[in-house]
């Protein structure tokens, strides 16, 4: 693969233009398919382990195909204590955090994308830098502070943390969409008699909506996946979020892998669906920042 740029030996002479290159592509295609299998294999193994009977899970001879398909593992996963409360906690915490985060982020992104003000560049830099801080540098002081404020074991403590941790990337991402909306649109709306607020609501916001949707799904996925702060800040098992709840499948007596895989599948499913939806948008969000505002 290291010489994958080399034309394959089947094409006789070097200078071949594009159409002829196709002939030699099947080598690459084979490698590409093998890579796809390797990358997707853990995901396949997750689903297949969730669906196979338990005696096959506890077997020294793991087979690539299950002999039969069963939903027993899912039944056991759902019956695990605190399943419903965990869903509830995850939804409450992540949705509240994302809604709040998006409002604050949109305001800030508009300011950064539309105005030139003192400290604008510094703010952008800070937003990028804080994302590189090691998690424990934040975890210890936040734990100590929430403990002093009585915020441990409370949803609001976790919500505040999640809300703010969506801000840095949401601001940068939404700003990328804002700078792509021509100012002229807003200006002409204002010439036609809109107030600044009216121009925003009627012109900018509709154009911004797809970008906002992508950013919020993104934030939602990140909040949904977070486990470390949830694990440390919440000790009451009726307030566990789904990720922390997953840890209850491992006890001193070992791990119920069948049920764990079934539960993991259920938790990952919405994420995968959302991820597939925004995948294209995300690439746009990543690159649109490159067009200067």
């Amino acid at each position: 693969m290291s010489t994958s740029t080399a034309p394959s030996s089947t094409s006789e002479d070097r200078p071949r233009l594009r159409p002829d290159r196709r002939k030699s592509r099947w080598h690459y295609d084979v490698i590409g398919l093998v890579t796809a299998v390797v990358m997707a294999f853990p995901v396949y193994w997750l689903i297949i382990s969730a669906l196979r009977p338990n005696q096959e899970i506890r077997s020294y001879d793991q087979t690539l195909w299950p002999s039969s398909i069963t939903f027993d593992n899912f039944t056991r996963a759902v019956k695990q204590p605190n399943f419903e409360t965990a869903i509830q906690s995850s939804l409450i915490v992540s949705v509240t955090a994302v809604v709040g985060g998006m409002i604050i982020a949109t305001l800030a992104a508009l300011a950064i994308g539309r105005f030139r003000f003192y400290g604008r560049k510094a703010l952008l830099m800070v937003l990028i830098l804080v994302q590189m801080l090691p998690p424990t540098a934040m975890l210890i002081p936040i734990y100590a502070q929430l403990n002093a404020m009585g915020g441990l074991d409370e949803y609001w403590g976790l919500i505040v943390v999640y809300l703010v941790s969506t801000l840095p990337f949401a601001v940068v991402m939404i700003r990328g969409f804002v700078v792509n909306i021509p100012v002229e649109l807003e200006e002409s709306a204002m010439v036609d008699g809109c107030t600044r607020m009216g121009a925003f609501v009627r012109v900018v916001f509709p154009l911004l909506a797809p970008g906002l949707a992508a950013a919020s799904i993104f934030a939602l996925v990140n909040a949904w996946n977070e486990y470390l702060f949830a694990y440390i800040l919440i000790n009451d098992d009726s307030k566990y979020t789904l990720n922390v709840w997953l840890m209850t499948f491992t006890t001193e007596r070992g791990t119920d892998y069948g049920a764990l895989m079934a539960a993991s599948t259920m938790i990952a499913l919405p994420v995968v669906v959302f991820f597939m939806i925004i995948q294209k948008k995300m690439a746009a969000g990543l690159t649109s920042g490159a067009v200067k505002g």
Partner: protein
Amino acid sequence: MTVAEKKAAGPPVPVPRSPEAASPPLGAAPGKSRPRPPRRKGALLPYLLVGPAILAVAAVYAFPLVKTVIMSFQDLGRRELWTGEAPPWVGFEQFTNILGDGEFWSVTGRTVVFMAVCVAATMAIGLLLALLMARLTTWVRLVLTFALVAAWSMPLMVAASIFRWLADSDYGLINTLIAKVAGEDFLGHNWFLDPRQGFAIIALLVIWGAIPFVVITLYAALTQVPRELEEAAALDGAGAAKVFRFVTWPVIRPVFTMVATLSVIWDFNVFGQIWLLRGNKPEPDYETLGLYSFSKAFESTSFSQGSAIALITVVLLSGVAVYYLRQLMKTGEVE
């Protein structure tokens, strides 16, 4: 959410755009024709708009960071935490203790080696796969993209569970497969008894999780390499290696550097993968700087020691972060 497991939308990685590939979401002509937004001196509105964001970031990022600094000069233990008593000031004692402890240095060495191996493997495989992507038939490329996105979208918690299951000593698939080749003895092999083998499994998880982002970003950069240039170089007699070296590489280099820098930061801060694969209680042999700081704080309840180690980590990383920011400014991302 911690940085390492963020799905990587945040840190901007600018991808150069060629005119035909540049399709801003709204079909608007990019940048040039548009006048710069005027700077209105003294206008209050932008400050009102960014106010909430600044407050929030100050409360949850800046304040804890300051507190980390303060705590590392104090001695905050369990008693002070629960009684609310003011912890005593101890000056540089925490730092002298940590830096004088041989364990700290072996943990740091382990972190650096682990980071270097993971980054090198991720970037090498990522670059090769991105080059491969550019040469695939469309449907194969779609299949590969789908597989990459599927891997990318796995929550870290779930991915760690899968890998723990794959490497399980009794019923794990890895042991079953190896036993088929190497004989029955391998069944029941515990991968985590020897930290070197254990770290191999952990590195596998880290690399597997990081590759999709790297490949998709580098591939986006590769699509910006002008086809004509590659063909012209080939016509002029440049071999594949030379085309890559003199045509392709210069175009994708900024993106490659950026992604590599981000990988350095993420893999240096590695936490979740080790923590989850070791069942929330990593043995001392598995501690990297993040886990070392975590276990000092939450297992030995010496929060000040933990903070001091976290602070040292921040200082170690700041050079890389500044380098990243400079790269970003060069490409005009932060203007």
